[in-house]
């Protein structure tokens, strides 16, 4: 699946997007964040305060307990500050 990062999540991870294949046990958005946080220092830093990080699956806001099984594109980003 494709992951996208925005704003300071992007800056901390050090890239704007990547393709990942998480293990079969990773079922939800929250579990995906836990798994990502274990992938290295930059990910641990990006996901250190998981409560403030928002996620979207295929352009729709989702909660941490949302299943990722059918996702093509998952994005992680800080709370939005547009307008």
């Amino acid at each position, binding site marked *: 699946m494709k992951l996208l990062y925005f*704003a300071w999540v992007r800056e901390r991870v050090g890239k704007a997007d990547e393709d990942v294949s998480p293990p079969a046990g990773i079922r939800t958005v929250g579990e995906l964040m836990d798994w990502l946080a274990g992938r290295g220092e930059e990910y641990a830093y990006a996901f250190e305060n998981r409560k403030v990080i928002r996620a979207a699956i295929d*352009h*729709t806001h989702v909660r941490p307990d949302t299943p990722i099984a059918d996702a093509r594109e998952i994005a992680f*980003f800080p*709370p*939005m*500050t*547009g*307008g």
Partner: protein
Amino acid sequence: MAVTIRLQREDFDAGAEMARLVGGRTDIGAVVTFSGICRDHEDGRGVTAMTLEHYPGMAEDEIARHVAEAQSRWPLQGVTVIHRYGRMTPGDNIVLVVTASAHRDAAFAAAEFLMDFLKTRAPFWKREEHGGAASWVDAKESDDHAARRWTAATSGRGRR
């Protein structure tokens, strides 16, 4: 309903967009326009420039969803939403919302609704420059509070 949604790096002309929405129609009684402009200060601190990052594709989808929601809540005849991205300096346009209806309460309510959701749900992130330093803008509790009033209340004047 006439719906225009644009994400763009270029500036826009608020007056021209208003005129385009209304032009030639005689059934519209009220047009409300909101222009968001890059300010030279934020929370008492000087701002020298600002960069708006967005999530292409999702931003359009999310705005379209909220325009559809506004249409279902109020009798609207037209909605235009334009949001810029990229680097802006104080005085530059950032965002434009235009709503048209037969009556003013619907036009006002829909414009406020759309702005509250652009602030809290549309995938945009502001990075402000203060002289040499730059920092990502934190989300405001006041914006979340403003957005929540639309889920608590019913449509139209009933929300007050």
